[in-house]
């Protein structure tokens, strides 16, 4: 009998996510973000969160919706442009922001998912990112020691999933979703299409179900596009 991770919906999935916790949210820009869970977090009104995510959404979508309700105490991200409310909270000191290189963000997630306590990266050497951090030289090149993230929840969005928790992503919506899925103490996956075990090709699975604690089929995906660019 295969282990079943299915929960009813986003509300059920985040039921025990509480004030003051640290959460990871997958996505790059608005691509591959867990829309249903973000909506549920906004509805639940959970506060004082530390959010780890590459971006902070835009004013009226993605993590921007949580910022608007002042649910976020601290944001750890690599790029936070194009968000007026974010800017206001940052400048007023309401929001604590830690900006880190995008690769460092990915590797600190990966480290957590691989049971590595820390990793070495050359990104940020000689910059303010290196301040207060251990620098070590290997083979003539300097590296920063960066520690694994420790997140209470990771919330990711996949294209397809099965009730055993196996996930498949589409195109560039994969981004941070894989490494965050592997990094959460509790990982919640929302998927566009949830199927029974055996319906996904085991060879094509991007994240094995062992990393996933709760999974549900989301609904009403808006999948907003930040920069629609077309060629004639």
């Amino acid at each position: 009998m295969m282990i079943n991770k299915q929960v009813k919906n986003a509300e059920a999935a985040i039921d025990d996510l509480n004030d003051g916790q640290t959460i990871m949210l997958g996505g790059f820009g608005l691509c591959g973000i867990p829309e249903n869970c973000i909506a549920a977090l906004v509805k639940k009104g959970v506060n004082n969160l530390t959010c780890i995510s590459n971006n902070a959404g835009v004013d009226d979508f993605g993590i921007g919706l949580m910022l608007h309700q002042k649910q976020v105490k601290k944001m750890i991200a690599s790029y936070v442009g194009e968000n007026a409310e974010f800017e206001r909270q940052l400048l007023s000191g309401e929001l604590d922001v830690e900006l880190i290189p995008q690769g460092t963000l990915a590797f600190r997630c990966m480290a957590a998912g691989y049971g590595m306590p820390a990793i070495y990266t050359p990104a940020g050497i000689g910059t303010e990112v290196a301040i207060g951090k251990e620098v070590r030289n290997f083979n003539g090149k300097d590296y920063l020691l960066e520690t694994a993230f420790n997140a209470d929840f990771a919330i990711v969005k996949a294209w397809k999933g099965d009730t055993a928790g196996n996930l498949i992503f589409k195109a560039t919506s994969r981004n941070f979703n894989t490494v965050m899925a592997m990094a959460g103490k509790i990982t919640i996956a929302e998927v566009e299409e949830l199927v029974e075990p055996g319906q996904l090709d085991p060879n094509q699975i991007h994240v094995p179900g062992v990393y996933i604690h709760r999974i549900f089929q989301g609904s009403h995906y808006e999948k907003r596009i930040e920069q629609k660019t077309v060629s004639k």
Partner: protein
Amino acid sequence: MLDKEAIAKRIAKEIQHNSYVNLGIGIPTLVANYIPKNIAVCFQSENGLLGMGPFPKEADVDADLINAGKQTITMLPGAALFDSAMSFGMIHAQKIDLTILGAMEVSENGDIANWKIPGKMVKGMGGAMDLVASAKNIIVAMQHVNKNGESKLLTNCTLPLTGIRCVKKIVTELAVLAVLPEGGFKLLERAPGVSVEDIKKATLGKLIIEGEIPEMAFD
């Protein structure tokens, strides 16, 4: 005294519902045959598979689908394939709930030796050092004494170690024992027909016996 199948059957009772389990070569492999139908369990093979199924029918043998013991196997619905790095990543990140493996020696503080006998052939540790360094729960399946009649439950291991302070429970042909966090083998159950005295004789490390020791139940 239990035979290998009975040891495997007793260990199967330790497997909890909704758990991910890595089975070593030998007796541990047999454990899969005794999982109750109502228990959801997913077996990991550290060469890159979750959801390992039984051996294939002759017609379904696939050279590209083997377990960590190099045996041809099958996948169950819901299985997932991955590479060796992700496999040991999930082991080190403690995503695997239980590891069951064999041992040459276990010490009373939970050290385990199972990969090398100096002077004899060294086959290598394979994935054992990774598994014992990280598993949340480790159960050892082994004979209580070696071929020379010497106890394999020792104060300190004499063979090169595979890992330290990691074994939580031991199931042998004679007994079920817990390795206590503060050290010592706590006798939990006797095999049918085996006396506490028999177990005392076969155990060189510190044996802790409190109250009546029940006989194993198998139902």
